């Protein structure tokens, strides 16, 4: 939970977000709602408003999905934006969200993804705590005397369920042992599984012999829709066909109407109390038994959580890698877009709603999150959706399906600072060819009805400087800005006036959406590491959609 919260909300210049991380990790059932209250308070400072209006400025991912900047990643090797759908999620390590204990994945598998020591309330799913009571019991050394003795039981602080409700005796030690309910049918299920394993093995053996065609053992094959695809013409193999299919050891018993039990008389005679009958979610919490009486609910082990790492699908390199320790909320690798791509916010609302055919002036706030100066140029929206050249492409042959070698050739490390447009186009198109095959194309639909009147000048942003965040009187660097373009500037941030025209043909009902492409300098330090060259500067483009009907507050 903590990891997720941090990833989504950890935006560089927002100190108050730390509250969020700390509070969600607190073992408090109200953790999340408390955080929201905190954020709301901060919201008055107006700087936080963008957190609540995430969809005002949306970045267009290369797969065509539209996401706010905090949901997008930036692959430093492909130099492209990646959204959660174009990265593959991998399980890094298992841990318990309550006791923060790491569990190796083999052990987690054996323990069915449950924590050893933490328990969950079967009634409301909160974590159970151990409570101690003292009883007077005969002392061990002198049975005639009464001595206080400590006993422990599990209790839920949220719904007041206790292990005594389940008829579990108090334990003498605080760590249990608490009884583990066993599935009464485990033996039977094992037998059935073994039987099917034998069948499957026989079918596999039969398949390995060339001339045997019929796969007759597993029912799924025989009727199941899959057998309709014969790979070879039938050829009888007397040996295999002659062999009888083994009979199962266990067959479920059947019963007739008379043998089935009548409904217990409680249904008619006793008064119905809804609290004594479990709800659906309580039953689903205990799938083995699915008890219908509340008294039969047993404490369950707490479900583990995972830290996940993300990998770029195109170049197969890590985009996110959390630190191994479950307590740590830091990352070894964290390529969020807001560390690499200029952040654009709508600074002030339009004073009056924009009308079709009219012009308006908007103020954007730009921030350069990188350690290198950048120069931003505004262009009309120029996003090209990933599309196959042919709408009905030929059947993908084996060679076209991506093998790992394919993805490794032509890695987009070939960006050069002084590349001619041809080379640039070539790398860009080879990059896109790869993305077409590897990425799931989403191409979310959107409608742009406002155009930009792009200024000729570029806006230069100095690098990000951590210390300037805390220095209100720091010197603002002088870039000889044209006041009509850049009215305000501080450290690595600048405000920009832009003229926007809404299309004449646009309908009044459509919300005004501005399409915009920014071109900026990006210094590729990864290439320097790999090729032992100096950092390479490249010009990158990012495409944005800005909704003009929302006020930033």
């Amino acid at each position, binding site marked *: 939970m903590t990891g997720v919260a941090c990833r989504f909300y950890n935006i560089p210049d927002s100190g108050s977000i730390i509250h969020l991380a700390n509070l969600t990790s607190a073992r408090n059932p109200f953790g999340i709602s408390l955080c929201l209250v905190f954020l709301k308070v901060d919201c008055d400072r107006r700087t936080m408003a963008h957190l609540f209006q995430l969809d005002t400025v949306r970045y267009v991912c290369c797969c065509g999905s539209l996401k706010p900047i905090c949901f997008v990643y930036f692959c430093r090797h492909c130099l492209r934006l990646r959204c959660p759908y174009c990265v593959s999620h991998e399980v890094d390590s298992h841990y318990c969200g309550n006791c923060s204990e790491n569990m190796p994945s083999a052990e987690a598998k054996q323990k069915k993804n449950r924590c050893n020591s933490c328990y969950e309330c079967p009634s409301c799913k909160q974590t159970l705590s151990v409570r101690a009571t003292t009883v007077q019991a005969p002392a061990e050394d002198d049975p005639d005397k009464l001595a206080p003795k400590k006993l422990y039981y599990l209790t839920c602080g949220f719904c007041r369920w206790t292990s005594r409700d389940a008829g579990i005796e108090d334990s003498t030690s605080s760590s249990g042992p608490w009884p583990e309910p066993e599935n009464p049918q485990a033996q039977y299920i094992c037998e059935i599984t073994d039987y099917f394993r034998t069948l499957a093995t026989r079918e596999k053996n039969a398949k390995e012999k060339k001339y045997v065609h019929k796969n007759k053992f597993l*029912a799924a094959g025989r009727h199941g*829709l899959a057998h309709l695809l014969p790979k070879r013409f039938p050829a009888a193999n007397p040996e295999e066909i002659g062999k009888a299919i083994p009979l199962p050891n266990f067959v479920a018993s059947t019963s007739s109407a008379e043998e089935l039990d009548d409904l217990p008389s409680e249904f008619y005679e006793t008064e119905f109390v809804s609290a004594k009958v479990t709800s659906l979610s309580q039953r689903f919490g205990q799938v083995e038994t699915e008890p219908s009486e509340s008294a039969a609910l047993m404490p369950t082990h707490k479900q583990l959580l995972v830290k996940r790492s993300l990998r770029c699908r195109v170049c197969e390199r890590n985009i996110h890698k959390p630190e191994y320790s479950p307590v740590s909320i830091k990352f070894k690798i964290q390529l969020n877009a807001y560390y690499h791509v200029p952040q654009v916010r709508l600074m002030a609302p339009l004073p009056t709603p924009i009308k079709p055919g009219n012009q308006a002036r908007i103020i954007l706030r730009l921030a350069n999150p990188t350690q290198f100066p950048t120069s931003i140029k505004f262009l009309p929206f120029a996003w090209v959706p990933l599309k196959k050249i042919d709408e009905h492409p030929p*059947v993908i042959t084996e060679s076209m399906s991506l093998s790992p070698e394919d993805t490794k050739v032509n890695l987009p490390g070939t960006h050069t600072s002084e590349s001619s447009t041809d080379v640039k186009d070539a790398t860009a198109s080879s990059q896109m060819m790869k993305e077409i095959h590897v990425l799931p194309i989403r191409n979310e639909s959107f409608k742009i009805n406002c155009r930009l009147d792009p200024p000729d000048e570029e806006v230069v942003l100095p690098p990000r400087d951590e210390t300037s965040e805390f220095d209100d009187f720091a010197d603002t660097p002088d870039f000889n800005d044209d006041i009509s373009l850049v009215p305000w500037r501080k450290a690595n941030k600048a405000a920009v006036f832009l003229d926007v025209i809404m299309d004449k043909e646009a309908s009044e009902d459509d919300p005004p959406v501005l399409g915009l492409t920014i071109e900026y300098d990006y210094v590729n330090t990864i290439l320097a590491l790999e090729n032992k060259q100096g950092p390479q500067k490249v010009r990158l483009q990012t495409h944005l959609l800005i909704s003009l009907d929302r006020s930033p507050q």
Partner: protein
Amino acid sequence: MPKPWIGFAIDPADKIMLLHLLVTPKDRKVVVVESVFCQTDWRETFARVLYFHYEILNVLWLPSHLAAVSVTGWDTGLVVDMGYEDATVIPVYKGVTILNASSSHALGAKTIDKALKSSLQKNCTNAPENVEELLTEEKIEDIRVRACFVSNKPERAKAFRFEINGDHFLEFDGVAREAAAEVLFQNDDLDGESIPRMVLESLAKCPLDTRKPLARSILVIGGTSMIPGFTKRLLKDLTELTAEKNEDVMEPTEYRAFNLPTKENCVAWLGGSIYGATEATNIRGFTKEYFLKTGVVPDWSNLAHNSFKGFLSGTSTPTASPSKSL
């Protein structure tokens, strides 16, 4: 009809893989337990999600009724699948599905909920004015799960109270508890259908010599059948209906239902996990390469795979070119 958007499949699947199963989807095999009457569009969308989005190498597509029959350890069963939207009866004899004898009708939990709502409104004894608002869909489901049962006796249950929210308690006449599930048995709705009649019709369409074994191995699955008293009532009604000897109804015989090692709503899942524990995925699953090549997952309803021509050619003729756009 527009193609279903993959997000509908990806978001819940992500939740299953990364919050509950805690696995890296890429290196797992997957067993999909599906209804044979599942919409092709949804099936294909899900296939694209599995093969393209999760890059799963091998997926076994298993019909849910076969998965259910495998749990019994036996190869014959008349599967009565009680779902939310509808009830489906599919006979499986010696491992072979008699698909033309299957029947499906809108008699599921949704039907019960509808009947329950009107019955609750009728039988509310302390009726406040806003009864209709208080009885939300979730609350109706809660009442169905906790209070309803299928009656086998002429007796009546006692009046009961149900907490709607902290402020409201509704009191109902006891008849509401047992009346709702009657819609499954009384066959006086528009289609003139009931669960016992569906079973009998299905049996009547089966070959003669399979009817008795099938009648002796009725397999009731699906969460809706977990209403207390359901199976007993079904068997009782079947016996009575047969005794009446309607013309399309078979000879009187003994009806028996399987006692299963798990609750009814998990039967198909358990069957799927039994298959998943064996080599079946490797033998019968469809690989990612196959899907990339043909763009389809073979299905019984697709004549390219399920026809004499397709059978003779020995290979499937791909009908659709693969499209990676999800």
